[in-house]
């Protein structure tokens, strides 16, 4: 599930995990109805939601896992074996008896994933599992997710606003915006939706304040014009995207118009579509900015 913050990903995950009751409709998980067979749905699921904060920091990693395992009614002997097995799998065995308050964010997230795997569920719901992690831990967590899916055959529902993560890990992607799924398909097929149309990207510094409206007035035959502002003070340029219509034919007009407004153009690409482009095309909103997808 790919969508910006506030799109409804977490709400959907919470409905599927029976933490919330949906206003209408239902879902079937592992053959069980989330409204009527809540206990069986819960037994079928493992969940990572809310990240590292959702553990008891005053307890050790082992104590945390032993406690949560007891809620899944596993035999006591099996609990200890399983906890050790998962701590080993997460490379945490040597620090298993330290309190989580002494762990790093990435280590706590690993404990959270281990918790989701305690009862060896066939389905995992992962809500932003790499949020706030450094690149090393993010990569480790992504590798683990890939392993769980490919090697252990688990069904993983990943909710994320990182398009690279969705592109890298998912067989199918549902794009969600303002509580609605606007498209669901394989990453390649989703990108093909944009491939057919022209896509021009201008990398620049100091674009005008109202760049989108300004360029729209000059290029009315381009379907979507969007500006993703970079942190220019830190050296990250802004990106202006022209999607669809006669985007390629309008390159000259756009370059001239931006120069007139003192915009420093770094490069100009006829680019390969990304999932963000798909998102923009489908919703007319940006994925990479904070908060909800911003309507154009």
């Amino acid at each position, binding site marked *: 599930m790919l969508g910006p913050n506030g799109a409804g990903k977490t709400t959907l995950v919470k409905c599927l995990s029976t933490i919330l*009751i949906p206003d209408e409709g239902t879902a079937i998980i592992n053959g069980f109805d989330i409204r009527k067979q809540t*206990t069986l749905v*819960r*037994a079928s*699921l493992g969940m990572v939601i809310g990240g590292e904060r*959702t553990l008891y920091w*005053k307890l050790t990693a082992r104590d945390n896992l032993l406690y949560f395992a007891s809620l*899944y*009614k596993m035999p006591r002997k*099996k609990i200890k074996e399983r906890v050790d097995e998962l701590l080993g799998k997460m490379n945490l065995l040597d620090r298993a008896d330290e309190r989580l308050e002494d762990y790093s964010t990435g280590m706590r997230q690993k404990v959270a994933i281990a918790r989701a795997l305690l009862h060896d569920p066939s389905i995992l719901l992962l809500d932003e599992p790499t949020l706030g992690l450094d690149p090393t831990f993010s990569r480790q967590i992504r590798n683990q997710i890939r392993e769980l899916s490919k090697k252990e055959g688990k069904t993983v529902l990943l909710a994320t606003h990182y398009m690279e993560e969705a592109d890298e890990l998912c067989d199918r992607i549902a794009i969600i915006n303002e509580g609605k799924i606007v498209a669901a398909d394989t990453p390649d097929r989703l990108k093909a939706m944009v491939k057919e149309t022209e896509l021009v990207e201008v990398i620049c510094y100091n674009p005008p304040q109202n760049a989108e409206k300004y360029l729209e007035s000059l290029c009315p035959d381009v379907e979507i014009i969007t500006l993703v502002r970079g942190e220019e003070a830190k050296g990250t340029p802004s990106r202006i995207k022209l999607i669809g219509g006669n985007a390629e034919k309008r390159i000259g007009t756009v370059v001239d118009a931006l120069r007139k407004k003192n915009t420093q153009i770094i490069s100009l690409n006829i680019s390969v579509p990304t999932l963000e482009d798909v998102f923009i095309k489908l919703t007319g909103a940006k994925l990479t900015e904070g908060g909800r997808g911003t309507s154009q």
Partner: protein
Amino acid sequence: MIMRPSETYSFRANLLIIWSEVVKNVKFLLAYPVIFVFWTIFPFFWFIPFIFQGQAFVGGLQSASFEQFAGTPDYIPFIVIGAILNGYVLTSLYGVGESIRREAYRGTLDYLLSSPCNKAFILIGKAMSESINGTMYAAIQFVVGILFFGIELTIDTIMPIVLIIFLLILGLYGISLMLAAVSLQFKQAHDLAHTLEYVFYVFTPVRYPLQSLPFWAQVLGKFLPLTYALVAVRSIMLLKQDVLAIYQEIFLLLVVDIALIFLGFYLFNWMEKRTKSSGTISHY
């Protein structure tokens, strides 16, 4: 999957949930060792004002007019028993509701709710942790009472007193569940717990005999389990009565317990469903 659906209702597994919850809460308690200072000092501090109050009002620690209501002229042992049993009320009022709020604050409540176990066992575990806390506190107060305030505890009275305290705790579990339900809906139960604390102080015979209250207040007090527990324990310890002489109090305590537990579970389940529908269950 390790857990199969058919395994969801095993008695031993449910006991393990309660045990794990108790162990977790005891570990939390030990993580904050300042609590032991409170346990050591507070029993003395609680009793001392009553000694001075008794001396100021009746010129000593015995009173004939007090005896007319209480059946014993000894003011201090009466108060000590009131304080000990009221300790269980305090731990119950402030324990479970606050614990639910803390789970929401930590973000762990979602995980408790999304586990396949019956939530009642988690709540019982939480309430039992509070009872253990209350019992440790009560034990210290009993020792202080025996050593310094003339409380007499004989071997033959221990079992009946344990039984009465057990029944008191059951009734308080019902009130704990209600406060947990309030905490789910309103995100804090502290103020209500504070109000209830004073309801218990005023309408149950913690500090004075029930008979000194007006009739309507006595009737109100009879809806609270502490009233029966105090009357029964004082009858055994101060009036040296037999268990058979207080069977009525024990029976009524049991009736109040069942009503409170039923109400507590009903209210908690109702609030859980309500907050799940409104989407506010994880808020804090």
